């Protein structure tokens, strides 16, 4: 795990895990609906920016780079945050990591 894992994860893309997971931008943050399991999650603006970049086709690495620029932050730290966030979504079966083609 560790560095290797992060390396492979960072070049992945992310997709919603099935057609019954829905995402909607709200006035305060973004809501993820896991309609099959009847759960609703609200993510704040930062989580919403990560998800938006990922769902528009950026790899985790690209996403980290863009956000590091936007937030004027250290890229390695941002990458680690992005991976952690995606892992949390994946653990709840909201997204799947797919290898970048």
């Amino acid at each position, binding site marked *: 795990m560790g560095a290797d894992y992060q390396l492979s994860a960072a070049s992945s893309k992310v997709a919603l895990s099935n*057609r*019954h997971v*829905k995402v*909607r*931008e*709200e*006035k*305060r943050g973004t*809501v993820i*609906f896991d*309609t*099959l399991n*009847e*759960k*609703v*999650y*609200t*993510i*704040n603006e*930062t*989580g919403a920016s*990560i998800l938006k970049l990922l769902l528009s086709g950026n790899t985790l690495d690209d996403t980290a780079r863009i*956000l590091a620029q936007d*937030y*004027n*932050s*250290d890229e390695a*730290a*941002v990458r*680690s*945050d*992005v991976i952690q*966030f995606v892992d*949390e979504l994946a653990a709840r079966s909201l997204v799947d990591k797919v290898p970048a083609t």
Partner: protein
Amino acid sequence: MSLPLDHWWIRFPLLRWRRGVSVETEELSEEPSLDDLTGPYYVAWWITNRCNLLCVHCINDSGPFHQFDNELAGDEIERVARQIVELGVPQGSITGGEPLIHKDFFKVAGYLSDNGVSLNVETDAQLINRETARRIARLNLRAMQVSVDGATQSTYGLMRRTTTGSAELSRVLDAIRMLAEEGVRVSVNFVPTRFSANEVGQVIDAVAALGAKTFYTGRIMRVGRAAMNWKWLAPTEAQYQGFFATLNQKAKEYSGRVRIIYYPYTVTHELKFRTENPAASFVILPNGKVKMIASMPFLCADLRRHSLAEAWERYKIAWKHPMVREFSEKVKDDDPMLASNNSFVELDLEQPVIQSKV
């Protein structure tokens, strides 16, 4: 420096748009403020009031000759469906009456499902054959929700009436099997009555064996025809205790295989809670009127006159209407007021201001 990710999400584990709770979480959940939302989370579309059956407990008072005389026409249905998609409603259900006998059912369901709405369809399943099951599979629904309220023909037939006799339990069970074989997620809905509550365990066993994945139930609602037949339908409290105990036991037995979800509260309890914490959902009636919640008679919009976005704004205001609050405060569990839920009352609301999406 890393991202400002602290508290990046808040988890809401409960069922927030339908009336139900899982056996693990037996609480009603609070909704976010409706003002923070761009539209409903859930729209229940009662597409026709015509039904092949005439059930004794029907909350919508549906039946073979019960079609509203002003149900939405094809082009109006298309417009409503388009607006549901445009407003970004993430999920909905098509209900009735029996949705499968509506001539536009497959067209509407296909359109909604293909355009991002996670869709549930509620059916008595009496009209499903192999070919219908295949067509339904192509809709990619979230689930087909089938009503099964008895483990024996005598119990099922006592509740599920036709103009000439009783509906056949075997047909429903066949339909569940065919749907599951065609890859459709099947959920089962069970309404307990004085004579069916003790069969709930057998029904769960039967539908689980046929491939159902979710089982919903709760107290019978004292609305519609159920209210008229209340004296001989309503289970006793002692029966309910046994009923809920069986559900808990079955939930353990089927853990990881069938989700067993029940709502332990009465309609009155829900109404009082919802008045303070309105759900982000409403019901579209066959004639395009918008009903706030199944158990109250109040209408807050008319989709022949209002867009769905306007209906949403009116819905939010409607919860503060004095008639709604008075109804919710006065209503009691054994109140015949609940029987009047299908004697619709149009609320007089001020013209709402439409807020733009952020």
